[in-house]
């Protein structure tokens, strides 16, 4: 059998999303797929994202179980996702026109500030929370990020 495409997996996720299942493991040849719903116990290692919720607009890449939003979580690709610790407007740079706090390829420590989230004029700096290399910036500059939404992805050192 051929490999599953990303679209196939999306379809499977959608199907399961609407169902009551907590956990799914699929192995086909060298393909392994494991799914575990938020709140379900017994976690193995590389649990991939929970399916994509209801929010229609600007739906972010789904992240891992809801509980763990304030700390980086292991993402399916092996990287860690840094979630927004609170709702607000995300800024990649300390001020307009300035260089971004981090770029793809940058090395960060747990304390490195990766952006700012502004809530009603209050600025909250967001630390990486984990040491490693930035592999992807997901949140857009100047846009609303929801609580728990993935901001950037880091390959742990």
């Amino acid at each position, binding site marked *: 059998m051929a490999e599953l495409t990303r679209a196939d997996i999306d379809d499977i996720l959608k199907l399961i999303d609407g169902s009551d299942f907590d956990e799914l493991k699929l192995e086909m040849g060298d393909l392994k797929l494991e799914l575990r719903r938020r709140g379900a116990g017994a976690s193995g290692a590389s649990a991939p994202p929970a399916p994509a*919720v*209801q*929010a229609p607009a600007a739906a972010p890449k789904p992240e891992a179980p*809801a509980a763990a939003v304030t700390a980086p979580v292991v993402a399916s690709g092996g990287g860690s996702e840094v979630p927004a610790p609170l709702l607000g407007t995300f800024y990649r740079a300390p001020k307009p026109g300035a260089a971004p706090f981090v770029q793809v390829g940058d090395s960060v420590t747990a304390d490195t500030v990766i952006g700012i989230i502004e*809530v009603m004029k209050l600025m909250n700096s967001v630390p990486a929370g984990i040491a490693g290399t930035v592999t992807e910036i997901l949140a857009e500059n100047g846009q609303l990020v*929801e*609580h728990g939404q993935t901001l950037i992805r880091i390959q742990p050192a």
Partner: protein
Amino acid sequence: MIRRLFIANRGEIAVRIIRTCRALGIETVLGVSEADRDSLGAQLATRAVRLGPAPATASYLQVGAVVHAAKATGCDAVHPGYGFLSENRALAEACAREGLIFVGPTPDNLDAVGDKLTARTHAIDAGVPVVPGGTAETLEDALALAESVGYPMLIKAVAGGGGRGMKRVNSAAELPGQLDLAIAEAAAAFGDGRVYLERFVTVGRHVEVQILSDGATVLHAGERDCSVQRRYQKVVEEAPAPGLPDPLRAGLLAAAVRFARHIGYRSLGTVEFLVDVDRQEFYFLEMNARIQVEHPVTEAITGLDLVALQLAIAEGAPLPMTQGDIRLTGHAIECRLNAEDVANAFMPSPGRVTRAWFPSMPGLRVDTHMQPGAMIPPYYDSMVAKLIAYGETREAAIAVMQAALRTIVLEGVKTNAPLHAAIMADPAFQAGGVDTTYLAGLLPTLTGATT
């Protein structure tokens, strides 16, 4: 005109507001906690945004996150529902500052009724009777006051509401301990340790008046009787109040309108009274400056959509009717269906709902956020549905409710449906006009459990 409404609430009231918005063509953005991201409201809203983690203090009570999210999603108004930030002056002011319509009264209105002592003073000024009592900053004050008014007394938090934190004192000996407890609880629950004392009216009914005001015209939409309570929490409500003598009813309604007019109230609101059955008198308790949980019984007997009216008032529209246009027809009863274990001291029973079926039935309305697979999180209150039965007579409404309780299905969690069935079948309730001590007396006969 409101085109996109931010809803800063959850559960059935979020769904209720969305229902009217969909009918009116208003878009909705629902602010949810992480625990509610898959809730029915989140599914139904045009968009849902996650305000914060499950605890309400970090999500539903975050004024900054609510206002920021409302602006960032292009909303022009904020509906706070009930509870949470619904009577929070900071939210109303932040909305005004940011150019958002706050679907509720003015910040001044909130001040006038939010502090119970202030509200009490306004009532006296408006010629509305209040329960004998007053403030007490020291134990000596309290003892002197109690002496002059007479025991039993009730200690209440100035910043409290909904019955929370109230303490009964039967004698001077009990006063010191209960006063300390009340102050400590009030400080913990409301961040404001001020308390006051009132005469405890032993045989009283809880009757409240629905107010509609556009700031110029103040109307009432009849009264509701919410005397079936457990630990000051309403369990069953109905409209009109059964067996209320006409002069007493007329007095109540007029007093409520007088109070609202006195404080220049503008929005929907409810003026609550304690009715002293023995003396045929009534006393002002407080005014709730928001949509009420039990608003559907008023909608049932008036045909009004109170949420739609609330939105129209917030938009600045004048009330589209006069007092004479509000006709009260028939009788309506609401049962609050809670996920709780009646047999086990009313312990909350959170969990996942496996089956939920609330079919259309003649005379029945159900407001709920339940559906198969819905999660009832442990973080918030346990109300999962409101059953509202309507009939031409009170007897007919009770019959509708009884049929509904036999018919509906909610499985996966325990509910208080058996309690409601027992109340509806109880001769004292069927006779009508029970007081607030009624349910505490009924409970032991049902479960053997203490209340």
